């Protein structure tokens, strides 16, 4: 049962018997403090990290026995990862600052494809969502899809082709060269 318990001045998120406002109030300062003091992360970044960990905790709260240890373990790991990635960052030379990111040079061309792909997933049937997801997002081969769905490779190939066609028909996605 989840409720937003309305008080006089505020409402509280209580889900699966856990008062998340209370857990947040009890631990968030400590989490941010650990990231700032022990890992020397700026407070704004530390808060963002702490919130990511808290959201991950919310998603599986019923599995976690020692909340404090879990949240502290989470913020320490996230902080280490944050620092590791930051160390890999190299400052740009002044003359580079006004140049665009080379990864984004084709953004105008690829963005419509990415949006179209997402739209394609949204407008097909569940069977096709699964088939297209396995094939194009998770990298399964046709043979692997066949094994996963306990069918023949021929059926799997037909399914993927049919689903691509459905995506084209329903979402107006064009074939290459159309």
């Amino acid at each position, binding site marked *: 049962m989840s409720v937003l318990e309305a008080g006089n001045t505020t409402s509280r998120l209580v889900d699966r018997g856990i008062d998340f406002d209370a857990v947040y109030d009890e631990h968030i300062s400590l989490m941010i403090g650990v990231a700032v003091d022990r890992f020397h992360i700026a407070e704004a970044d530390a808060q*963002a990290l702490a919130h990511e960990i808290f959201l991950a905790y919310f998603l599986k709260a019923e599995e976690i026995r020692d909340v404090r240890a879990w949240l502290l373990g989470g913020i320490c790991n996230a902080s280490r*990862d*944050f620092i590791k990635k930051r160390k890999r960052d190299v400052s740009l030379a002044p003359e580079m600052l006004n140049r665009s990111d080379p990864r984004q040079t084709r953004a105008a061309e690829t963005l419509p494809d990415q949006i179209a792909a997402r739209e394609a997933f949204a407008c097909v049937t569940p069977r096709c969502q699964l088939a297209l997801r396995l094939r194009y997002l998770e990298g399964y081969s046709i043979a692997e899809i066949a094994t996963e769905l306990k069918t023949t490779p021929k059926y799997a190939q037909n399914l993927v082709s049919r689903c691509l066609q459905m995506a084209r028909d329903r979402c107006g996605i064009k074939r290459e060269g159309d």
Partner: protein
Amino acid sequence: MSTDISTREGLFKVMAQIAAEREAAKPIVAELLQRDEPPWDDDIPQEWKTAGFVDELTKAAAGILEKDPAKTLSLLHFAFGLCSNLHDRNSSIVAMHLNAVCLKHTAYTHQFQGSLNEAARAIKVAIRNVDDVRALDHEQTNANFVLAGVLMRQRRFDEAVAVLRRCEERYTEFGDRSRLVRCQILWGAIANTSGDYQSAIERLSAVVTEASQIEDVHTRMTAHENLAIALHHTGRQADAIAELDRARGLAASMPSELDRVDWVRAGFMIDTGDREQFVDALDELRRIRAAFLERQMIDDAGLVGLDMVDLLVALERREEARDLTEDVIAELAHPGLETFASRALAYLRELIPASPKARAAIRHVKSYVLRARSTLSVEAFSPLDDN
């Protein structure tokens, strides 16, 4: 667009939305569980395209694994497809978490059904998908723990140990005692499966008391079952039976696990070499095989069948043994094992009617099946050297 969770307001907005979606999903998911098949070819209602819905459906599917693994897999596939609708909602952490959890249960279901290659593939995708998401470190460790179990069943012990060691480090950082107990039990199971029974006894004896304090009955059952196997192989029969009884008591609410424990017990009976016990074991194995077949646990049903063939030969009921062999080989002839099926069938068909070495040959074939189902590249089947 994703909601910004860097503020308290944004974070709680996302959490409250998911909580509400979960509540809204409950009656729909309950109705889906009653159907023979999810509506694969219908258009998806908007209220199903939510994180809360995918979460509820995944949990509900995982909850019926023991009762109906085929339906579990079907519903997990359905939920996995629905993950495709979550890109722009909530936060990317939510979508990636749900994707990983869904794949983790999919892998576990494959493992439950004996499909180890499919299990390995699914869990590796789960691990890869959350590899760069720092907030999902714990979930990635859970996925790695499942991978360690799959690797153990594939008899890839060095890899299983390496993955398990990393899991222990991570769980220690999270202060997750119950997961650390599970790691100890898996260490014991790896020792058992690799034949290091003394080490298994040491690890598992140390952990069963601690395991009794955790809520997960399956984990506790696994600890006692593995300890029983290790004790049996070191000749401590009475202790082994006592541990198996404890495992059986804990498995009472899990029919498939109860059958697996009874399969272990039948194995103990076969090892006595006592013909009277063979007859009892055969009856027990027949019941277990039928139950596995009904739950579509085909590989395990096939392996139980080979144990039955072994007993039928020992009881000189060779015609029944030959007929059953043909059934078993046909069942095990899934993709990747076809070559095995035809060659091993011919091999056993020749030997069973009269050869004094038929029992050794059956065990040789069983060990081949165990190896073959753990790798995609099946080595050619070769008969026993001294045949």
